[in-house]
């Protein structure tokens, strides 16, 4: 058994409840496949060695404070990964219930590339299903934070369902001050004509942050996500958007910032399963210090998914010779009458722009900061509603 397996999936104190069989099945799959290694294509850039050196303790640290977002919101606090279910005060049209057995029984994460999702299931503790049944005028903030001293491994599980025709804004505010492992599995379902504005704002300390998100988009439904990842010791985000029926739309816009001792790794996939579906993706990485940024963006237009359209653009800014960025856009098209495009650029700060700003009186360091900000802000410009956009841009400014 590998060191990582031993550490994370060895003897554990697990609750005695009805889910024992489900955990055992996942544990067996995990033992059979093992964790990814350097030969596992999808994980070859993710430094899991870091986890092998960690001692995880089950002791709970204090909760950490979320900076007030500055707009009216419904905030759910997940301290050190778990939601405190006491005195929840939810607005009308919002429901939280435990995840049903059925979806856990159905779960299948394949081979070792899905190891962390298997691990999540093997260590299943709190699984929540969030149902959004009517339009929400206030954004819903899921504040998942870890405090200083956090050294545990937690495996939260979340399902989000947006009901037919309903629009909502969901903000994943993930802030880490600890040195543990947060390994979350998230499944999102948009019913016919639903619309979800999803925002992921993430950043942190020394924890490893691993998340697998799958979004199912049904007919005429619209999923849009804006990502601001300010970097952490290790972030790995898998985001899969499945366009399942005609008129489904999926859009991903994101910026990841990495500096010294930081590693972020985004693997996105947009699956056009049927025809007349649209997608767009723009993802940027900004590398400074000795940070490492990885982006793998796949657009897959399945056989028969005719008349589909997709656009994928990536751009990267390398500010230090020690920083590293790996970008790989992938376009796979098996259908007809499809328009799809992708482009990738890697660059440094633009000399012309630098001189333009300085010629107006802005000193070199401030001009550089402004250009960095401009580069990073561009993918966030389309965030809705506007008060959330303004907050995200402020968060970005603080991070730079």
């Amino acid at each position: 058994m590998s060191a990582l397996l031993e550490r994370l999936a060895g003897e554990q104190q697990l609750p005695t409840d009805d889910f024992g069989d489900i955990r055992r099945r996942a544990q067996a799959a995990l033992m059979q496949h093992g964790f990814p290694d350097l030969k596992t294509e999808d994980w070859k850039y993710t430094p899991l060695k870091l986890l092998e050196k960690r001692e995880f303790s089950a002791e709970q640290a204090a909760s950490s404070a979320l900076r007030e977002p500055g707009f009216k919101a419904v905030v759910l606090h997940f301290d050190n990964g778990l939601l405190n279910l006491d005195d929840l005060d939810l607005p009308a049209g919002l429901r939280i219930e435990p995840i049903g057995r059925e979806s856990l029984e159905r779960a299948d994460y394949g081979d070792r590339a899905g190891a962390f999702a298997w691990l999540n299931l093997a260590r299943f503790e709190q699984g929540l299903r969030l149902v959004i049944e009517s339009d929400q005028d206030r954004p819903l903030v899921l504040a998942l934070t870890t405090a200083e001293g956090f050294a545990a491994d937690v495996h939260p599980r979340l399902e989000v369902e947006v009901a037919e025709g309903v629009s909502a804004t969901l903000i994943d505010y993930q802030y880490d001050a600890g040195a543990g492992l947060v390994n979350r599995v998230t499944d999102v379902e948009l019913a016919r004509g639903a619309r979800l504005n999803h925002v992921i704002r993430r950043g942190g300390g020394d924890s490893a942050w691993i998340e697998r998100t799958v979004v199912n988009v049904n007919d005429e439904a619209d999923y849009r996500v804006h990502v601001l990842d300010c970097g952490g010791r290790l972030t790995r985000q898998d985001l899969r958007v499945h366009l399942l029926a005609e008129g489904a739309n999926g859009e991903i816009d994101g910026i990841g910032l990495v500096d010294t001792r930081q590693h972020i790794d985004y693997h996105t996939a947009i699956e056009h399963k049927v025809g007349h579906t649209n997608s767009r993706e723009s993802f940027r990485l900004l590398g400074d210090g000795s940070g490492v940024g990885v982006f793998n963006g796949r657009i897959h237009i399945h056989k028969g998914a005719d008349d589909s359209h997709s656009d994928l653009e990536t751009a990267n800014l390398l500010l230090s010779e020690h920083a590293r960025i790996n970008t790989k856009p992938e376009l796979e098209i098996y259908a007809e009458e499809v328009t799809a495009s992708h482009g990738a650029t890697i660059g440094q700060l633009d000399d012309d722009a630098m001189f333009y700003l300085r010629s107006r009186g802005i000193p070199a360091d401030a001009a550089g900061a402004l250009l960095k900000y401009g580069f990073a802000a561009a993918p966030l410009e389309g965030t809705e509603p506007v008060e959330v956009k303004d907050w995200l841009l402020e968060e970005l400014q603080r991070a730079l």
Partner: protein
Amino acid sequence: MLRISNLHVTIDDKPILKGLNLEMGPGELHAIMGPNGSGKSTLGYALAGREGYEITDGSVEFEGQDIAEMEPEERAAAGLFLAFQYPVEIPGVNNAYFLRAALNAQRKVRGEEEVDSMSFLKEVRESLKSLRMDESLLKRAVNEGFSGGEKKRNEIVQMAVLKPKLAILDETDSGLDIDALKLVAEGINRLRDDKRSFMVITHYQRLLEYLEPDHVHVLSDGRIVESGGKELAGRLEREGYAFLEEAEA
């Protein structure tokens, strides 16, 4: 105001300006004309302090001070402004934010207080209006997606807000429609007084008809080869630059 003596500038060791002499007094408007590739933009960039434009000989004095070693932002704070022949797009940076940052940076160097945002916005709005530019341009990224003419007018807005002592306008009239040209000329004339000087680089007499330059110079192969009054512009428009070669031959 400005004294350029025997200026030699190279780009990548290639000589571009080859002994240029020019003197401008306060309140004067000088037009610079000359064939493509003669070094007009190079002069503008060299004065504004662009990296890679190396002064190998001669000197540039701005208000009695040698500016050769000054950073671009220091020159700007000292009162020098260059309207670019090709204004640069800066994605993600809000136009109003940029302009205010520029103004405040200059004020800071001069030991002045920051502008308050109300009076700043009021002034920018008035300036936009006088150039018939839509206010929404303020909220957009600097020059991004602006039409050619909007970019040029945006340079004039910046000049109006920054109020330089010396403005170098590099082909600000190129690409403007007839009405816009008139608006830009009015924008320049509004700023004219007995102290502020202008160096207007242009290929056409039309703008100069509105501006009434004090002097017109012809730049050719890195040197000023001919100077005169505004009638020189008319002659160039009619005859082209052919007479320069005749004169040299």
